[in-house]
């Protein structure tokens, strides 16, 4: 019960959080704090290697359950989501003070947090997909926090389209996986790992699921949405891009790593794309001056590292994944928040224009330095241990030299980024800034301070996090219990040499940062031919195709819609009728009777419609057809239908009467001869087809099963003698509910269109 309750608690509190947050109260952080504490309470059980499973009935008819699973991996994510959420909520209460749309912001970010928790706790593939898509939708709203800005809208849309397209691929993969494993339960799937990996469909599953994860985790070439999402307010960037949104792809791959870890395609795909992303992110990070974008590209590097590590089989890789994941979440959230403080206090986040801020913001400078240490992978921070693990894993892997070379370059780039963000802005000579900065208040500093201190604390005392969290999580990724002791100092190893080399490379590059940066920024081919431009071209192409299609099928003339609809409909029916030999004639015995008068009346009034010269006579003639049909119903023993038909006809005439005064009144038919012939053809064809279909229906013997049932069941079960109404309100009440909803929505939609027309004509007449 506890996991379902926690997730639903987070969802249910969203409006409440919105209300508190709307007043910029720092107490808004209590909600994520409560969740964090709840997960901490569950920690001891998981640390001992336990797994919390719970299953609730949801859609049993198709084997989908609301199942949740808490093991080391999901607990690590849940703690990061709620813990960093706590810091971000508190920070935003000061950072966004006085902004409009605060209620909206807090409501959505809470929904986002709840969706993230749901996604990492779900033990059912379908449930996972549902929460996964919820994170896409809520992050779309978060990135588009200022919808009046064009850039904001574009970034939100880009993030949405990329992650949702990935989500669709993932859905396909999940369905395949579910059918191969014959269950949607993740726990059961993990138990059938070898069987699934050996299935001929496994490559398809791997590609589809990896596509979803790559889109979510911004792997090259799908990385540009992450950097563009930096238009969002800093708390959003800090939250989405450190611990949550982009890590969901990492979570998904880590979750299924036990199933596919030895599959050659899985290894090639993940290490290949991971390494490519690391290089792409490194290059892009070196070109930027905007602090947030620099951090965003370094996030892409880290995500690439994580994906690559997941791709490498083995226990060591699993430990490296978890350690790096925690390290990255801690320092990246911290540095994003610091970048936000700099932006908030100085009015700029252009790193080339900032310097000497330590004089104004000593505390912020110290926090940034601590975060930067972890990012650069220097002792005594836990970042050092994580980096050593990455190198160790790379060295142990097959074709490890290539991965290590990539990691070396990427880590050197990280050193540069860390120095740019944490050192460059604060050291050196004072530079003039748009505002005179000073250290911000408690709410904005508390989060970064705690995150930075944790990075150092875990480095000095690795056992704090090693046994309780990293080992259980790594066991979940490896698929079997593992033993490992996390330590900061490994002795004099090849990894240490690599670390020193990284540092030398990084410091060397940082010293020449200005030159390197302007050289790299000068490569305009990246801007002109990069995936971001490609995305723009794709969107423009998509729009022109849809404009063309819309022009083809929506010319805007009601007459041509009716004509096309009737033509296609009757052609389809006619061809089917002839080809399948369904054409049949009933017996015409007993057809000469008083009913014949009605038939003649129908023919005459139909001809009158066709001959009508203007709207008024047309309306009257069409009304005549309608009333005659009603008469026919009446004489054929369907008084209800006749009654309805009468009412509809009367009402239609009244409405037409109201409308006709506003229509262009033409006394003559404006169609030319050719158009009249075409209309005659369509109308005649439709009439003939309808007649043939009706005759064929009449030729069949009458099947009375349904009417017999309703006649028998109506009074005892529904207490009514009027079959039509009993069917409408009782037997098929759900259909009726749907129909009245459609009717109401159609009226409201028509009202919206008509209101627009009215306004347009009112403005024109002014």
């Amino acid at each position, binding site marked *: 019960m506890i996991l379902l309750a926690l997730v639903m608690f987070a969802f249910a509190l969203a409006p409440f959080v919105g209300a508190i947050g709307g007043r910029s109260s720092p107490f808004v952080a209590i909600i994520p704090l409560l969740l964090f504490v709840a997960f901490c309470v569950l920690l001891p059980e998981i640390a001992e290697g336990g797994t919390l499973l719970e299953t609730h009935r949801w859609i049993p008819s198709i084997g989908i359950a609301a199942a949740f699973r808490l093991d080391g991996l999901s607990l690590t994510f849940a703690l990061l989501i709620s813990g960093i959420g706590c810091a971000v909520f508190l920070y935003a209460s000061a950072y966004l003070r006085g902004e409009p749309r605060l209620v909206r912001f807090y409501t959505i970010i809470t929904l986002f947090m709840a969706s993230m928790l749901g996604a990492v706790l779900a033990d059912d593939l379908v449930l996972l997909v549902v929460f996964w898509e919820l994170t896409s939708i809520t992050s779309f709203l978060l990135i588009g926090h200022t919808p009046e800005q064009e850039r904001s809208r574009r970034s939100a849309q880009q993030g949405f389209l990329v992650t949702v397209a990935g989500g669709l691929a993932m859905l396909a993969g999940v369905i395949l996986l579910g059918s191969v494993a014959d269950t949607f339960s993740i726990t059961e799937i993990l138990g059938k790992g070898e069987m699934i990996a050996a299935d001929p469909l496994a490559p398809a599953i791997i590609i589809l699921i990896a596509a979803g994860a790559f889109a979510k985790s911004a792997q090259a070439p799908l990385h540009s949405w992450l950097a563009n999402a930096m238009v969002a307010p800093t708390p959003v960037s800090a939250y989405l891009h450190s611990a949550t949104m982009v890590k969901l792809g990492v979570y998904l791959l880590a979750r299924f790593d036990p199933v596919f870890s030895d599959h050659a395609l899985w290894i090639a795909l993940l290490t290949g794309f991971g390494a490519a992303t690391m290089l792409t992110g490194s290059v892009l990070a070196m070109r930027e001056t905007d602090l947030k974008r620099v951090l965003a590209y370094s996030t892409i590097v880290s995500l690439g590292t994580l994906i690559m590590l997941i791709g490498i089989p083995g226990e060591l890789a699993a430990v490296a994944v978890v350690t790096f994941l925690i390290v990255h979440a801690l320092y990246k959230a911290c540095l994003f928040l610091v970048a936000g403080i700099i932006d908030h206090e100085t009015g700029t986040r252009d790193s080339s224009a900032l310097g000497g801020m330590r004089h104004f913001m000593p505390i912020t400078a110290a926090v940034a330095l601590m975060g930067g240490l972890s990012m650069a992978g220097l002792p005594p921070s836990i970042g050092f241990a994580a980096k050593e693990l990455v190198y160790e894993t790379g060295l142990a892997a097959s074709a490890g030299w290539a991965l290590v070379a990539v990691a070396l370059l990427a880590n050197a780039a990280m050193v540069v980024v860390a120095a740019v963000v944490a050192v460059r802005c604060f050291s050196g000579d004072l530079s003039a800034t748009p505002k005179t900065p000073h250290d911000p208040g408690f709410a904005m500093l508390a989060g970064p301070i705690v995150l930075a201190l944790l990075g150092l604390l875990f480095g000095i005392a690795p056992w704090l996090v090693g046994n309780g969290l990293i080992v259980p999580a790594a066991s979940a990724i490896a698929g079997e219990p593992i033993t490992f002791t996390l330590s900061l100092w490994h002795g004099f190893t090849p990894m240490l040499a690599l670390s020193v080399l990284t540092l030398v490379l990084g410091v060397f590059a940082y010293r020449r940062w200005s030159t390197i940066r302007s050289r790299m920024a000068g490569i305009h081919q990246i801007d002109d031919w990069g995936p971001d431009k490609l995305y723009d071209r794709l969107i423009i192409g998509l729009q022109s195709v849809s404009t063309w299609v819309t022009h083809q099928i929506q010319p805007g003339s009601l007459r041509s819609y009716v004509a096309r609809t009737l033509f296609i409909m009757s052609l389809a029916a006619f061809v089917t009728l002839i080809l399948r030999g369904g054409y049949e004639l009933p017996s015409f015995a007993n057809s000469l009777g008083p009913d014949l008068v009605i038939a003649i009346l129908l023919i005459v009034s139909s001809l009158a419609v066709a001959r009508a010269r203007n709207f008024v006579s047309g309306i009257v003639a069409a009304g005549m057809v309608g009333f005659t049909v009603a008469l026919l119903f009446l004489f054929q023993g369907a008084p*209800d239908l006749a009654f309805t038909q009468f009412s*509809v006809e009367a009402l239609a005439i009244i409405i037409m009467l109201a409308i006709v005064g506003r229509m262009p009144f033409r006394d003559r038919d404006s169609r030319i001869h050719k158009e009249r012939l075409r209309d005659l053809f369509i109308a005649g064809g439709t009439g003939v087809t309808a007649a043939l279909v009706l005759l064929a229906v009449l030729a069949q013997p009458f099947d009375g099963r349904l009417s017999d049932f309703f006649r028998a069941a109506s009074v005892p079960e529904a207490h009514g003698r*009027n079959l039509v109404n009993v069917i*409408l309100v009782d037997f098929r*009440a*759900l259909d009726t509910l749907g129909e009245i909803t459609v009717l109401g929505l159609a*009226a409201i939609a028509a009202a919206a269109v008509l209101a627009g027309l009215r306004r347009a004509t009112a403005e024109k007449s002014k």
Partner: protein
Amino acid sequence: MNSIILQTTSRLILPAALVFSVYVLLRGHNEPGGGFIGGLIAAAGIAVHAIPRGRTALFAMLRVWPKTLIGAGILLAIISGMPSLLLSEPFLTHQWPFASLPIGTTLVFDVGVYLVVIGSVLTFLSYYLER
């Protein structure tokens, strides 16, 4: 459309149509009629009343936006299905609480249909009326 004939006759038509529509609505379960037909009749009566008098007169007479009727109707129809959920039966299984009196949740449902039909027709019509 300021027609004296329509203005005068509609004074008679409106109450007659409304009373008749309620009658048709109520008898619907056993005799020809029901919420849909009742709604159409009422809407026709109100339309005849509103066409010569204009939009403002329509809103003054209804006292609510016609759109509100749509929402209220759909809500009623949904509410009529709620008791069945409480009794853990399929949604919209209608209940007949009184053994002797033929009144059940179907009536609530039918009133919902009635309101949606009136609301839809008048929502649409109101944009063609003069101000």
